[in-house]
């Protein structure tokens, strides 16, 4: 007899959704979190796409602790002095059925974990899971923790322990860990009065803005982001790890430079840093994913590298919530069917393959590499802003130059061969298509 049916490690979005799904199906669930409360260890850029919650918590939008509903989504290309901004606005996103929302993770994750408790799961905080227990056949059947008398047995363990997942590594599901598959996110929470944010970003009430930035990271491969909360702005950069030291620029210096950019500075003028934070992102998508099923074990969310980080998209919370939910459901099925070996748990991988979780990843497989490639990082922002500069600069008495000429000259100036341009364009078309 095991202590419980299902142990979920980590009360992030993946873990809480796994626990909700399993507890709703009537299983005994213990949800273990190392922070003093769920969300206390979790940091991200700032936008959640919670529609996947419809299945578990139909009225989530009435209760979830969100800051603002995204109604403007911008993509900014920064050169040293110029900026190209593609801005889309839809006020409809500010109403049901909604799209994205900004939220603080210590608020959102805590709320989500309380939904698991309400569904009947048992939440234990301030407890770090230190390893896995195995039965005589080597099947995983529980966990060890850093508590006295801290072993706990279960039929299925679901590892939702985030990007560093020592559980998945302990179970041998990852190949060697390669730093180039990860990016480091650092951000500042900047405080500004609500009305100032509303004015500067052209929104009102609880409407919010999402800005993804390419370029502006001081020569380090990566990107930047700005999101509006009610009375704070989240501003940060995402940096490719091995490149960091080559540039001899520290993360906070790169943030400072981004903040000084002429297109960014006016947005945040006068804002005070009220919290500085950092976290890793599993960036390489499909190419880094581990095996997600073992005897008695499922892996979900960032622990399985399911985060989608493809340049203009930075989505992980929705992938975590979905994969967590499917893991919870598969664990329940397997327990009910009396087979919790890897084969008994296979319905999980099947479900991931059938849904956006792996479909999006397959579709966008090439994009993370493309976006983080040296050309896209260091040449294209200058190339594109250079084109804009010349298209819109009026140099009378000279007549306007032809677009083709501008393209050719700017491409040469940026040092991009026609071959490369065509190849990247094709990769992009195919990759995003």
């Amino acid at each position, binding site marked *: 007899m095991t202590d419980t049916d299902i142990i979920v490690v980590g009360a992030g979005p993946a873990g809480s959704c796994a626990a909700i799904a399993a507890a709703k199906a009537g299983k005994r669930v213990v949800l273990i979190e*190392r*922070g*003093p409360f769920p*969300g*206390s*260890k*979790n*940091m*991200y850029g700032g936008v959640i796409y919670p529609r996947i919650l419809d299945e578990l918590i139909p009225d989530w939008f009435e209760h979830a602790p969100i800051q603002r509903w995204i109604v403007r989504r911008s993509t900014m290309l920064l050169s040293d002095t110029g900026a190209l901004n593609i801005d889309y606005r839809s006020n409809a996103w500010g109403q049901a059925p909604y799209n994205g929302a900004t939220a*603080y*993770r*210590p608020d959102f994750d805590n709320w989500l974990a309380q939904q698991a408790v309400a569904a009947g799961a048992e939440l234990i*905080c*301030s*407890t*770090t899971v230190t390893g896995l227990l195995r039965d005589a056949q080597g099947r995983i059947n529980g966990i060890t*923790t*850093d*508590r006295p008398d801290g072993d706990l047995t279960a039929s299925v363990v679901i590892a939702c322990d985030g*990007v*560093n997942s020592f559980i998945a590594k302990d179970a041998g599901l990852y190949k060697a*860990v390669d*730093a180039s598959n*990860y990016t*480091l996110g*650092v*951000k500042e*929470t900047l405080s500004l009065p609500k009305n100032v944010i509303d004015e500067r970003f052209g929104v009102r009430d609880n409407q919010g803005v999402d800005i993804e930035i390419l370029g502006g990271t001081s020569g380090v491969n990566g990107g930047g982001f700005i999101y509006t*909360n009610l009375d*704070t702005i*989240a501003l940060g950069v995402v940096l490719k*790890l*091995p490149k*960091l*030291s080559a*540039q*001899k*620029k*520290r*993360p*906070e210096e790169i943030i*400072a430079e981004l*903040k*000084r950019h002429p297109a960014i*500075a006016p947005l*945040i*003028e*006068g*804002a*005070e*840093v*009220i*919290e*500085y*934070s*950092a*976290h*890793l992102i599993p960036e390489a998508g499909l190419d880094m994913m581990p095996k997600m099923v073992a005897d008695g074990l499922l892996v979900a969310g960032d622990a399985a590298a399911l985060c989608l980080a493809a340049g203009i998209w930075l989505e992980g919370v929705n992938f975590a919530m979905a994969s967590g939910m499917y893991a919870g459901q598969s664990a329940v099925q397997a327990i009910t069917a009396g087979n919790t070996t890897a084969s008994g748990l296979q319905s999980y991988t099947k479900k991931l393959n059938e849904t956006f979780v792996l479909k999006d990843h397959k579709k966008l497989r090439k994009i993370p590499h493309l976006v983080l490639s040296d050309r896209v990082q260091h040449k294209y922002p200058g190339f594109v802003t250079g084109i804009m500069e010349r298209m819109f600069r009026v140099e009378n008495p000279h007549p306007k130059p032809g677009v083709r000429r501008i393209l050719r000259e700017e491409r040469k100036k940026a040092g991009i061969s026609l071959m490369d341009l065509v190849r990247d364009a094709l990769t992009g078309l195919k990759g995003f298509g």
Partner: protein
Amino acid sequence: MSLESLRAANNIERDATWAEMSFQERIDTAEFRIHERAHITVNGDSCRGCTTRECVVACPANLFVPTSDGGILFNYENCFECGTCYMVCNEAGAITWTYPEGGYGIVFHRT
């Protein structure tokens, strides 16, 4: 002379206020519940042979400080528990990395 033109003439950033934030002030904006046990330890001997010093540049909490004798001085207290250091370090055995005891370490508020 207006304040604006004064600033321009002296090449002063319009809002230099944040640029002046010291690293200590920056790290003080985060809450750390410090446990007496160091959850990360660095073996200075391994670092002596290390030429990249990746950790010194990459650690967002700036916890790795090179010493004049070629070693590394490390403090665990103000750590985000992000994992960057063990990922970028190529010297096997230089960093022993664990999470702090449950309930301790970084506590985010508005992230």
